Structure formats: structure tokens, C-alpha cells
């Protein structure tokens, strides 16, 4: 039933370019799709596994640069660029995750933050590779099977297909027993160990998968923008992913998907008042956190629990 609704919703979302010819609206749609994927990936490591990772911003940036460089510098195509972005990020995540995850959760947060800053520095200062602050402009839109995704409307299908594939994969993962084990590790790690489960492979894999998906999403988003420069590592992106996860409800797959779509659209809907729109956006977030400190999904869950307690009385 849930899946049937999800399928219908997915098809409805796919139809956006048929309903409007406005590149602006379609562009917002692409952002919504890609940000939702990146937020779902953050949800895997933060919401499910309980590890707050700021490294997502670094993975996002590495993904963008790897995809762009694959096409511009190394003469590959866009599709391979996205694959390389995912693979390289997985390897990087394993390399930084293996030592870092042996420390505690707080050290992990600091290490991931440092990593994100480091990637920003590399993007800005390794001019030979990244062209520094000038960036790499004029990224060509991809084509497949002789079809060129040249316009924003056409590229929307690429973003749509990518998002659906990634969200489908993450859903299968999060709803499996692996996802439940991640939740168990978040809730009570000593108990998990006492039950014969080694937490490390789970945490490390979640981190690597999260990195790979985020990197691929960064690659797809770069080619929507058509340019990559160090601004692609602006903290704005990390903040957006994090807000989506927290408002949606960390650890809830569907809550984060719904929040991803809603919160990507919200700042645009508020454009009727250009001067105040970010202020209104901020106020809405603050109020949302006051009313629902564990996000929309957490709020629904609390209500359900309260009903259960009532019944058991």
C-alpha cells in the first residue's frame, strides 16, 4: 500500500516538465530531487546509525568535482563520472571512517567537520586540478542512446531517474534487517555487542554508502548548474540536508523524503515577499522545531505511542 502510493507519487513527480515550461520551476524540482537524495543519505548515517556526519558536504563536493573532471579533464562521459564519484567517495569514506569510528561519537563529528573544511581548501587551492576560484564552467549536458538531455526540462528526467534509483536502493536498505540493526546500534551499542553483532562493519558500510550516494548526487547536481567552483562546497548545502533530516524526523525514511520535497519548495513559495522570505523561512523552521522537536515523523510517532499507552491502561 505504502509502496503503491510511493510509485504513484514518483510518476506524478516525473510529470513535472510536462506540466510547466518554466525552467525556473523545473530547476527547483531538480534541486528538490537531488537534495532529497542527499538528505536520505545523511539520514542513513545520522538518522539510522546515529552518527552526525558533516563529511557529507565534502562528499558532495568531491562528487561534483570528480564528475566534472571526468568529463572535462579526463575525457570520459557524464555517466562514468557519476559512477567514479560514487566509488571514490566510498573509498574515501572507508579511509576516514576506519580510524575515526574507533573513537567516540563526538570525535567523529569533529573529524567529519574537519574533513569537509579540508575538501573546501583543496577545491580552492589546488588550482592545477580544480582551477581554484575560477571553477570549471560550461559543463556539457549528457546524452544517452543518442538522446541529448540538453534543456533543463530534459535534464530533469536524468535527475528524476537518478533520484528514484537511489531512493529505491536506500529504502530497500533502511527497511531491511540491516537498517534495523543500524537503529539498534544507535540505541544501545553495548547491547548489540553483547548479542554477537560487531558494530564496526555496519557503521563503516553505512558511512561508505552514504558517501557514495551523496557524491553521485553532487555529480548530478553539478551538471544541472553547468559549473563547479568552490561555492559548491558552501555550508548552505550541508545546512539544507541537515534541516531536511531534522524536520522530517531523523531515522524515518518517509518523513525525510516528504520534508525534502516540502523544504526545497518552501523558500521558493515564499518568494512573494522577496525581502522577508528567508526570515519567514527561518521562523517556520524555529516554530516547527518548537512544536515537533523530533521532526514530523517523531511527532506522529509520539501521538501513536500516547494512544498505545492509553489502550494499555
Amino acid at each position, binding site marked *: 500500500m505504502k509502496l503503491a502510493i510511493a510509485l504513484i507519487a514518483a510518476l506524478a513527480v516525473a510529470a513535472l516538465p510536462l506540466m510547466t515550461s518554466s525552467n525556473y520551476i523545473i530547476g527547483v524540482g531538480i534541486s528538490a530531487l537531488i537534495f532529497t537524495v542527499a538528505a536520505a543519505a545523511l539520514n542513513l548515517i545520522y538518522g539510522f546509525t546515529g552518527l552526525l556526519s558533516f563529511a557529507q558536504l565534502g562528499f558532495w563536493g568531491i562528487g561534483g568535482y570528480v564528475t566534472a573532471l571526468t568529463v572535462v579533464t579526463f575525457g570520459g562521459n557524464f555517466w562514468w563520472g557519476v559512477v567514479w564519484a560514487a566509488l571514490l567517495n566510498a573509498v574515501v569514506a572507508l579511509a576516514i571512517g576506519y580510524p575515526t569510528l574507533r573513537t567516540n561519537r563526538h570525535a567523529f563529528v569533529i573529524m567529519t567537520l574537519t574533513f569537509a573544511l579540508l575538501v573546501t581548501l583543496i577545491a580552492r587551492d589546488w588550482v592545477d586540478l580544480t582551477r581554484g576560484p575560477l571553477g570549471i564552467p560550461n559543463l556539457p549536458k549528457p546524452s544517452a542512446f543518442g538522446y541529448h538531455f540538453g534543456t533543463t526540462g530534459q535534464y530533469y528526467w536524468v535527475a528524476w531517474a537518478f533520484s528514484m534509483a537511489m531512493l529505491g536502493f536506500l529504502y*530497500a*536498505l533502511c527497511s*531491511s*534487517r*540491516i537498517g*534495523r*540493526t543500524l*537503529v*539498534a546500534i544507535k*540505541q*544501545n551499542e*553495548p*547491547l*548489540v*555487542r*553483547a*548479542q*554477537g*553483532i*560487531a558494530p564496526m562493519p555496519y557503521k563503516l*558500510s553505512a558511512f561508505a554508502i552514504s558517501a557514495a550516494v551523496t557524491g553521485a548526487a553532487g555529480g548530478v547536481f553539478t551538471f544541472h548548474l553547468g559549473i563547479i567552483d568552490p561555492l559548491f562546497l558552501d555550508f548552505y548545502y550541508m545546512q539544507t540536508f541537515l534541516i531536511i533530516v531534522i524536520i522530517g524526523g531523523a531515522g524515518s525514511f518517509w518523513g525525510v523524503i516528504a520534508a525534502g520535497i516540502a523544504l526545497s519548495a518552501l523558500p521558493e513559495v515564499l518568494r512573494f515577499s522577496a525581502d522577508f522570505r528567508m526570515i519567514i523561512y527561518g521562523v517556520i523552521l524555529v516554530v516547527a522545531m518548537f512544536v515537533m522537536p523530533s521532526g514530523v515523523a517523531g511527532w506522529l510517532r509520539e501521538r501513536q*505511542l500516547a494512544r*498505545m*499507552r492509553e489502550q*494499555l491502561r
Partner: protein
Amino acid sequence: MSAILEVTDLRKSYAGVHALDGVSLAVEAGSITGLIGPNGSGKSTAIDCISGFQKLDSGKVVLAGADITGQPAHHIARAGLMRTFQTVRIYERLSLRDNLAIAAQQFDPATWIDEFLRTRRYRQAIDKAEVRARELVELIGLKRYWEIETGILSYGQKKLVALAAALMPHPKIVVLDEPVAGVNPTRIREIEVALADLNRAGETFLIVEHNVEFITNLCHRVIVLDQGKKLAEGTAAEIHTDSRVLEAYLGMTPEMAEAEMRGAA
């Protein structure tokens, strides 16, 4: 008589303080063994070292003939030693059913691929675990909470959930760290009966507990620790009359203890 768990000369010190100063103990297969002692006598350190939650300085731990000394906790659990914790540990935001399922999952043959693709092997494994979980839930009397998050249960009920989880994979031995501390008296009696039933069905227990009556009623053998050393060992009756135990544990001489018991009767 064969020991399922054999611990030899366990030593552990923190910054010069000997928490364990050469403790040896054995648990017979099919028995209930009690481990008692005053606060700070090293009981909890002993079971933390045995179950791999703390590194021991020296000594040897053998479980069913296999040397498990110094192995990480998850290896020791896989070898067949399941434990509970003094401050109850369960997955409070998961249902009772999931709590029990997770406790058994490492012991079935399903791999990550099986789990991701929900293969036949995976489905068979979870069906088998579910049968066991339903049995245990029946035993601990929490059937009506099957689908409900365990966070809403009472403290005593949570202890029962932790006990059931430890029993899920048919372990060789279950180590219980203060199973009835903080539990109300009626519930203590229920736990006592449940443990006795399980023991008759063949389960082996090592129990750390402060509640002397509970230990006396249940345990075949009792080991007393004091200041990191084994002070005495024997049946509950023998321990009750041991002057060293009374002095260390209760601060009483045998005469005083006898007088008190007469007074109570």
C-alpha cells in the same frame, strides 16, 4: 559434572587497585551459580572481564572447552555466552518482537545479501527466530506487548525483556547481572519461577545479585567475592553459616545471624 565455564586466576586492577586479585570459578552445565559479595567486591568486574566488556590483566576464561580469554564481546557472545546488564539494556524504541529478533540474528546463516534481497534463507531464519521469540514471550508473560515499543514497559518488565533476549539464541550459558535489583517483590518471585523453569529445561545461569533470598532459593552453588578475592564457595546453606562470609557481607558473627533468624521466625 562438567564445567561449561571455567575461569582461572582472573586479575584486573585499575590504577593500582586490585579489582580482581586471582579469582577462579567454574559453572557446571545445567546449574544455577550465584556470585555474591559486598559492593566493590569485584562481581561486576568479573563478569565484564568474562564477557569481553573489559580487558583482563591476566587469567584464563574457557567456555565449553574453547579459550575465549581477551576476545571482543561479540566473539564471546557468538561462542555462546549471553549476558544482561545491571542497568537494564534493551532497545527502548523498538518493539518487543524486534528486541528479541535482533538478539538472535547473528546466530542465523543469513548474510547481508540475504537480508537486502529478503531471500528464502533469510525468511526461513526469521520464521525460526519468531517461533522462539513467541515461546519466550509466553514464558515471561508479556504477550500483549508483542508489537509495542519496549520503552513504555515498567522497569521489572524491561528486565524480563532483557532476560528473554539473552535466551533467544539458545546460549550455552546466560550471565545475569543483578536480574532483580530495583524490581518489585511480586515480580521478583515471578522472575525466580521463570529462571527455575528455564533451568529445569536445561539452561545454565551465572547470576550476580545482592538479593540473598533470591540467590538462596535459586542457586545450586554460590560463590562469594570480597575485595577481589574468592572468599567462600558452596551450597547456599553452607554459605549462610560461613563466618567469613557473614562478617564480610553482613558484618555479623554467626551467633548474631542466628539470633536474627530466630527473631525473624
